[in-house]
């Protein structure tokens, strides 16, 4: 395992794959007070919020492109940096657990409804840990390879659904006002742990980061909008009865003699989950390794994997626990703190420190 660098293309492709998982595993419970058609408008708000919260991270990067939020915080004050590190590690841990938990809920309810899936959790987490062990570069490269498979598959599924789309299934936009739509956009941004990943990974990325970020933001938003368009126009209100609407959507898709294509979306799901969980486990181990624990990264990865397994075993035993933990408020707080609050703090205090330094020099 080395300290590796990825190109902006590879890095943002990895984030695209990671975010695609969140889109594909969209839970219909999130549409409690929002109509599916509103989800078509929501991306506009997403882009705006997503761009705004990344400003502090970008300014830090612009000022010092070899150091990330964590290393700058550490250079300023070791006391402050410790809670910051804990915050990032916890956020990544939480999202790893949620990624595996969703996969587990999906497997337990859709793929193998009558099976105890605890071994599946172990199997999945161990494989993701193996991906993390192989490193940032290997994950980045496999993300690009995955994207080569995932994107055409999604396009293909959507193409097969075009004939089934019925605009009469749409609902009026802003039927319940603008606020629920904005709230959903915030929810959606909150589910995007990738903003936090960007905050700690930018020094490991080479190339045009600004362009990469905007292409990533727009592409994942477009993908989301297209998927919601098809979910709304094909399934209409049926979508709200399904736990995983996009999985059901793919089961409605048909091509030639194949009456359902849900197996394909299952494959996409697992591939994306592997990349996302692998990346998050790697980041946890990497942050812990370079911040305070001088333990080999390999051991930290194993440790992280074991804790993830334990957490998932606890959550997966009851659906109510999953529903409790998979809370959008927690996600919004964690993403907001790691992507915006901490970088903003580091930016402000970093500058103050610089001013003091300049005064001393004078």
């Amino acid at each position, binding site marked *: 395992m080395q300290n590796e660098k990825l190109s902006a293309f590879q890095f943002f492709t990895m984030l695209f794959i990671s975010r695609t998982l969140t889109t594909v595993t969209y839970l219909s419970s999130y549409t409690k007070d929002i109509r599916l058609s509103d989800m078509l408008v929501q991306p506009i708000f997403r882009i705006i919020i997503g761009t705004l919260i990344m400003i502090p991270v970008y300014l830090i990067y612009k000022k010092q492109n070899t150091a990330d939020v964590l290393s700058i915080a550490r250079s300023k004050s070791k006391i402050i940096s410790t809670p910051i590190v804990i915050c990032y590690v916890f956020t990544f841990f939480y999202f790893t657990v949620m990624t595996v938990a969703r996969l587990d809920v999906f497997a337990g309810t*859709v793929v193998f409804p009558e099976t*105890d899936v605890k*071994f599946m959790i*172990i199997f999945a987490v161990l494989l993701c840990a193996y991906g993390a062990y192989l490193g940032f570069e290997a994950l980045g490269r496999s993300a690009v390879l995955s994207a080569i498979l995932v994107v055409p598959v999604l396009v293909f599924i959507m193409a097969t659904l075009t004939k089934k789309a019925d605009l*009469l299934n749409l609902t*009026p936009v802003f039927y319940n006002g603008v606020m629920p739509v904005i709230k959903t956009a915030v929810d959606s941004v909150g589910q995007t742990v990738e903003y936090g990943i960007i905050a700690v990974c930018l020094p490991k990325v080479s190339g045009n980061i600004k362009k990469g970020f905007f292409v990533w933001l727009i592409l994942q938003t477009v993908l989301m909008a297209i998927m919601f368009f098809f979910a709304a126009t*094909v399934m*209409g209100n049926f979508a709200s009865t399904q736990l995983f609407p996009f999985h*059901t959507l793919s089961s409605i898709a048909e091509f030639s003699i194949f*009456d359902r294509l849900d197996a394909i979306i299952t494959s996409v799901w697992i591939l994306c989950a592997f990349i996302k969980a692998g990346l998050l486990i790697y980041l946890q181990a990497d942050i812990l390794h370079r911040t305070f624990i001088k333990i080999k990264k390999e051991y930290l990865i194993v440790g992280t994997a074991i804790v993830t397994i334990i957490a998932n075993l606890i959550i997966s035993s009851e659906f109510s626990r999953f529903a409790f933990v998979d809370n959008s408020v927690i996600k919004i707080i964690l993403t907001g703190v790691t992507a915006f609050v901490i970088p903003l703090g580091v930016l402000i205090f970093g500058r103050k420190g610089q001013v003091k330094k300049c005064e001393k020099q004078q």
Partner: protein
Amino acid sequence: MRKATVVLVVLIIAVFGFNEKEIYKKDIRNRLVIQGIGIDLEKDDSYTVTLQTIDTNAQSATSAEGASQPPIKTYKVSGDTIYTTIKSVTEIEGKIPLYSQNRIIILGKSITEEKMDDVIDFFVRDVENSASIYIAAAENSASEILEAKNGEEYVSARSIETGIKACEYDARIFGTQLYELISRYNSGSKDFALPMLSVAEKGGKTGVEIIGTAIFNNTRFREYMSKDDTVYLNFLSDKVYNAAISFIGQNDKKISLNVVDSKTERKLKFENGKPTFKINVKIKADIAEINGGVSQTMTKEDMEKIKASAEQYIYKQITETRKLLYEQYESDACGYVRLLYILKPSFYRENEKNIDSVMRDSIYEVDIDLKIRRVGHEFIEMF
């Protein structure tokens, strides 16, 4: 190498420990492949479920067309819920039912008139059921449809589904799949339409016949429309890609049109506070047949006359169908309430409770634009 071995061992344990018992239980050999499900409600409030399954133990039979068709076996079981009733087949056959290959769900008259909500839930909840399965209503009981025999062989659910698809292609029935049905269920009006099946006896042989489209109002069966009338229901719903229309033209000649393309544009505007639906039906059609038309040269005038009488005929049929739907059956099977809901949500919200009367009193401006593409005759002088 040691690390790789450890990883391998852990993986093997994880994989093997996972669901060893499942292999035998869920293996394809242990599954009872269901082709069709029919549900009837008994007087004592219990359900009778008729299952049409593929008999894997029997040798494949050859159908009349010469194509190999799987042998069919039917089961008729009763119980309190659909789930437990179907499950009880396992006790008879020793195999676990496999719903994913099910082609059709047929609902008996007793169900469609009373308990639609109760029986549909199982099919939505169970993950193995396909969301795109066809739902049909039986004129009488569902079991008589699935147990109908054409000579020695059962009429297969697959052939019923094929028949429904063929009729749907010709716009002669209003095909509804499970996800569409549930979508309507969860919408405001809860009105929909299903293909209607009946057992017919012709020449001493029984068979399953698709007799038309069952119209539902607020999840209850109201009446059924004939296949010929359903064509115009489909015109209203913008669901016609192909259709056959016959009408009496000039000089009492019977004329048939083969519709090759159709697009219904539906617009909403308000006149004097009343919703006005502008329905513009654009049809492309070929002349398929004119009684006594052989060897007659067709002039441009003749064509115009045919076009005018066809447009008049289609207009009349569409208007009558619309009246039947909104005035007699009070059903929004063709989706105009939804159009109102999308385009004027505030109006819909205000009138949600008395939407049936609103739709009845609304203005419908129907405009037919027929283009005759081909005459299908070599004696032609008009161009």
